[in-house]
C-alpha cells in the first residue's frame, strides 16, 4: 500500500513536471510577443528575446496605426473571411461526412477515395493553376476565392467521417424517419448536435488556418482596404532595412488575439472532452 502510494506520488511529480514544462514552452512565444510589443525597434534588433518590458507601447501603436492602412479594417476583413470560411467548412464537411456515413450509395467508396487523394496534392504548385484561374475570372481583390473553396475541405471531411462512424447510431436516424422528419431536417436537428464536439475541433483548426493564411491572400488581395490583418503585419516588415519591429510584434499580438479568443470559446469542447455515442470495441 505504501509502495503504491509512493508510486502514485512519483507519477504525479513526473507528470506535473512535464506538463508544466510544456506549458512554459507553449506560452513562451506569446509572452515574448507581448513584451516585444512594448519595446522599440533597436531594442528588439539587438535582443529579440527579452523578458523585460520597455516603454515603447504607445510609439509602436502610433507606427501601427499611422501607416497607410487601418488595423481595425484588417481585423474586420480577417473576421469576415475566417468566420465565413469556418462556417462553410464545418457545415458542409459535416454534411459531406453524413453523406458518406449514413447512406449507401454506389459512388460512396470512390468518392471517399477521391477525397483522400485530393488531400495529398501539394498545395504550393496547384496554386499556379489557382492564381491564373482567379486572375482570368477577375476574382482578385475579392473575398470569395478565400471563402468559397472552404466548402470542399477534405481533411475536415475525413476527420468528421472517422468520428461519425463511431458517434452516429443508425437507429436514431431510423427513429427520426419514422417520425416523418425529412433527411435535411434529420441532419440539422439530430446529426449536428451529436457532431458538435468534433465540429468544434474542426472549427478551431479551420479558423486558425484561414486566419493565418498569408500566401494566397497576399497575392489576391492587393487593395489596402481589402487586406487581412496578417498581410498588414507582414507589410510592417517591409524590406530588411526599413523595418518597424516593435510595431510588428504589436501587430502580431493583435493578430493573434482574435484567434485566442475564438480558440478559448471553442475550447470548452476540448476541455470537457467528447462524449461520444460510444465507439464499440
Amino acid at each position: 500500500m505504501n509502495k503504491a502510494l509512493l508510486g502514485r506520488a512519483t507519477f504525479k511529480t513526473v507528470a506535473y513536471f512535464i506538463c508544466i514544462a510544456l506549458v512554459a514552452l507553449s506560452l513562451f512565444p506569446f509572452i515574448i510577443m507581448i513584451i516585444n510589443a512594448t519595446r522599440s525597434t533597436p531594442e528588439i534588433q539587438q535582443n529579440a528575446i527579452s523578458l523585460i518590458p520597455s516603454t515603447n507601447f504607445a510609439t509602436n501603436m502610433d507606427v501601427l496605426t499611422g501607416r497607410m492602412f487601418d488595423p481595425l479594417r484588417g481585423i474586420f476583413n480577417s473576421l469576415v473571411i475566417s468566420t465565413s470560411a469556418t462556417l462553410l467548412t464545418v457545415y458542409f464537411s459535416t454534411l459531406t461526412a453524413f453523406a458518406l456515413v449514413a447512406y449507401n450509395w454506389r459512388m460512396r467508396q470512390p468518392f471517399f477515395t477521391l477525397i483522400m487523394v485530393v488531400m495529398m496534392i501539394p498545395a504550393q504548385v496547384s496554386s499556379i493553376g489557382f492564381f491564373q484561374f482567379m486572375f482570368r475570372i477577375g476574382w482578385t481583390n475579392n473575398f470569395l476565392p478565400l471563402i468559397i473553396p472552404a466548402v470542399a475541405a477534405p481533411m475536415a471531411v475525413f476527420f468528421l467521417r472517422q468520428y461519425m462512424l463511431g458517434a452516429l447510431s443508425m437507429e436514431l436516424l431510423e427513429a427520426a424517419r419514422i417520425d416523418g422528419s425529412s433527411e435535411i431536417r434529420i441532419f440539422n436537428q439530430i446529426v449536428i448536435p451529436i457532431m458538435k464536439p468534433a465540429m468544434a475541433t474542426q472549427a478551431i483548426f479551420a479558423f486558425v488556418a484561414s486566419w493565418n493564411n498569408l500566401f494566397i491572400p497576399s497575392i489576391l488581395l492587393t487593395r489596402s482596404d481589402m487586406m487581412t490583418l496578417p498581410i498588414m503585419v507582414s507589410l510592417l516588415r517591409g524590406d530588411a532595412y526599413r523595418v518597424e519591429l516593435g510595431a510588428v510584434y504589436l501587430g502580431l499580438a493583435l493578430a493573434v488575439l482574435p484567434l485566442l479568443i475564438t480558440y478559448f470559446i471553442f475550447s470548452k469542447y476540448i476541455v470537457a472532452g467528447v462524449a461520444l455515442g460510444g465507439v464499440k470495441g
Partner: protein
Amino acid sequence: MNPKKKSFSYAKYGYLFSIPFIIVFLIFTFYPTIYTAVLGFTDSQGLGNINFNFLENPLDNFRVVLANQSFLNALWNTILIWVLNFIPQLGLALLLTAWFTSRRSKLRGVGLFKVVFYMPNIITAASVAILFSALFGHPIGPINSLLQMLGHDPYNFLNNPWASRLILIFIQFWMWYGYTMIILVAGALGISPDLYEAAEIDGATGVQSFFRITLPNLKMVMLFVLVTSLIGGLNVFDVPRLFNWGGPNAATTTVAVFIFNWAFTNRYMYGLAAAASMVLFVIVAVISAGIFFLLRDQDAARERKEQKRLRKLHKTNQNREVQKP
C-alpha cells in the same frame, strides 16, 4: 413526402448532400490541379508566358526531376524531418492522452493543459521561424548566452546542417504535438466507459488498460492522425523556408520549398515544378495507401458491419412501411 418513394431512394441523399463539396471541389481544386498536372508534361516556363508545348517525350520533365540531386536531397530532408518529428510527437501525444483520459491518474488542471498545449499551433509560421532563429542567434542569442553561462564558447547552431535540421524538427514537433493530442483525446474519450469498468473488475492496471483498450480503439483516429500528418509533413513549407532559408547547405530545404523556388523565382519553370509536385504526390499517395492497408482491418470490417446493419434496417423499414395502411 410520399412514403413509398422514400422507402427505396435513400441513396440519392448521398449524392445530394455531396453535391456542394463536389461542385466547389471541381472548380477550385480539381481544375487547378489538373491544369498543373498537365503542365508537368509541357515545357511551360517563363513569367506571364501562357504558350507552352507538350514535350516530345512526355516523361522528360520527370526524368530531369528524378535526376536532380538537390531535389532528391530535399526529398530526403523532408522525409527525415517528418519521421524524426512525428515519432516523438505521436509518442508524447499518446502519453498525454493516456494521462488525461485515465480514470485513475486524477491529474489536476487537465483542462488547462489541454487548452494550452495546442497554443503553439495558433502562431503564424513566420513568427515561429523568426523566434527560433533569434533564439539560436550567434554569437549573441539566448541559447548562446546560456552556453556561455555554463562555461562553453558560443556555438553557431544555424551554420551546422544537423543542428539546424534538429531545430526544425523540434519546431515541427512543438507546433503539432498539441494538435495531435487534441485529436487523440477526442478519440479516446469516445471509448465506451463500460470497457474500462470491465477491465478494472478484471484487475487490469492503468498501463494495461491503455494498451489493451485505449490503443486498439484509437485505431481509426490514429489513421487520421498518421495520414494527415504525413500529408502535412511532406508538404511542409512556411517554417523551413523562413527559419533558415533552407540552409545551411540545403539541410532544411524541403521538397515544397524547392518546388516553390523552381516555380515562382528565377526562371519560372512551371513544367518542371509541376512534374516535381506529381512526384511528391505519388510518394505521399503510396505511403498513405500503405498506412491504410496496415490499419485496414477494423475500418473495413466496421464498414461492412455498418452496411449490413443499414441494409437490415432498410429492409425492416420497408416492411414496416408496406404494412402501413
